[in-house]
């Protein structure tokens, strides 16, 4: 039987209360939301917090809304709600692509976006999705709020910019200014339904007058951390979308990741796969941006 090491449990009744509890309890306290990353870690004793602060009652952190030119997603929003959100599917369709293949429907009833990002597991899909969508993460603590881009949010494998007495409260996705068409897609290959990715590619494109005004491209599961493909983005910027361009971006993706050989496949296979998935994601993002005319 796998059972977590003993801990004390308390329920937060407000966001400020949760932050206050983190500050009061110090380094041995952890927030628990869906628990589908933390509890498995605790069962394996890879994590052994002495205090758990349950934030599942903080329903004020569960929402997806459009506000001030952004999509704002509360940290406690569950995978099932990300999957079913029509607003998100319209504005950032890569979320629905990813959520369709994250774990299984029962797990998706519990897991949250805040928990997924805070787990900072390179194989997890939403980190690449948020990186491609140029998300900002809102972190609250000590009476203040700060915003951190995905590159700074993920400090390393399983390590984030969130301090001990801070809480992630929101994820913000900037919407394109008027005149810009946008499209996005997430492409994943997995061994079986609900598994972690062998590799996955997320792409978001903002297109203006036939040229790519801006691009976001990121990869899951092919490096110790989520791979943000800045070289591929630089290549895409200013160019008209084309198959040749996407093939070149795919080659950069294959080169700029660092997969390791494991039960999911050897390195050369994963590099090849990353190239194919990057190309497919860019192609589908373009089709969506241009309403299927690309």
């Amino acid at each position, binding site marked *: *039987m*796998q*059972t*977590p*090491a*003993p*801990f*004390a*449990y308390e*329920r937060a009744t407000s966001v400020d209360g949760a932050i206050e509890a983190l500050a009061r309890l110090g380094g041995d306290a952890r927030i*628990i939301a869906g*628990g*589908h990353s933390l*509890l*498995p870690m*605790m*069962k394996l004793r890879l994590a052994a917090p002495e205090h*758990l602060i*349950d934030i*599942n009652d903080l329903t004020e952190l569960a929402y997806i809304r459009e506000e001030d030119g952004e999509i704002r997603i509360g940290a406690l929003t569950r995978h099932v709600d990300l999957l079913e959100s029509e607003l998100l599917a319209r504005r950032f369709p890569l979320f629905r692509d990813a959520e369709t293949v994250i*774990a*299984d*429907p*029962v*797990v998706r*009833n*519990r897991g949250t976006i805040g928990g997924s990002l805070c787990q900072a597991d390179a194989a997890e899909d939403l980190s690449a999705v948020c990186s491609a969508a140029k998300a900002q993460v809102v972190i609250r603590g000590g009476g203040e709020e700060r915003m951190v881009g995905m590159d700074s949010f993920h400090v390393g494998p399983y390590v984030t910019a969130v301090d001990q007495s801070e809480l992630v409260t929101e994820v913000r996705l900037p919407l394109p200014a008027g005149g810009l068409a946008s499209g996005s897609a997430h492409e994943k290959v997995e061994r079986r*339904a*609900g598994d972690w990715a062998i590799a996955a590619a997320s792409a978001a494109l903002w297109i203006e007058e036939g040229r790519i005004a801006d691009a976001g491209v990121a990869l899951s599961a092919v490096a110790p951390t989520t791979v943000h493909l800045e070289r591929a983005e630089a290549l895409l910027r200013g160019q008209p979308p084309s198959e040749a361009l996407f093939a070149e971006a795919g080659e950069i993706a294959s080169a700029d990741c660092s997969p390791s050989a494991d039960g999911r496949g050897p390195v050369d296979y994963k590099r090849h796969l990353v190239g194919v998935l990057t190309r497919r994601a860019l192609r589908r993002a373009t089709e969506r941006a241009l309403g299927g005319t690309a």
Partner: protein
Amino acid sequence: MNVSITVNGEPRAAEIEPRQLLVHFLRETLDLTGTHWGCDTSNCGACVVLMDGKPVKSCTILAAMCEGHEIRTVESLEVDGRLDPVQQGFYERHALQCGFCTPGMLMTARALLDENPDPTEHEIRTAISGAICRCTGYKNIVSAVRWAAEHEAATRQEA
């Protein structure tokens, strides 16, 4: 710590360790052994129960987190000797052999039909994609859920 959880419509209170998982609370503290404890890693789905009507994996949720919530287990399906249509469907269509996955499959199927009374084969397969059966190859399980859907639709028309 003390928890009170509504299980199958009855308020149940117990003194537990905070680290007790829901599956062990059900099986050991309440002696409701219908819920099976399988992989312990939220992969197999044998331990699925309904929390406020939604299927969850009880091996990956603390009993303490269920305080104030309603849990429904496989024991609640049969009422006064009458099987729930999903149970009857599993019987009619031979949707189990060893039976280990069955409680999780039944509760996952029950939740699906509560939300979507007329699911397609694809929708059924998606709904049970988090539940593993090593005996049946799933074909008869899908058929059993369809049987239950059709049976429930017929019952509703009669009513």
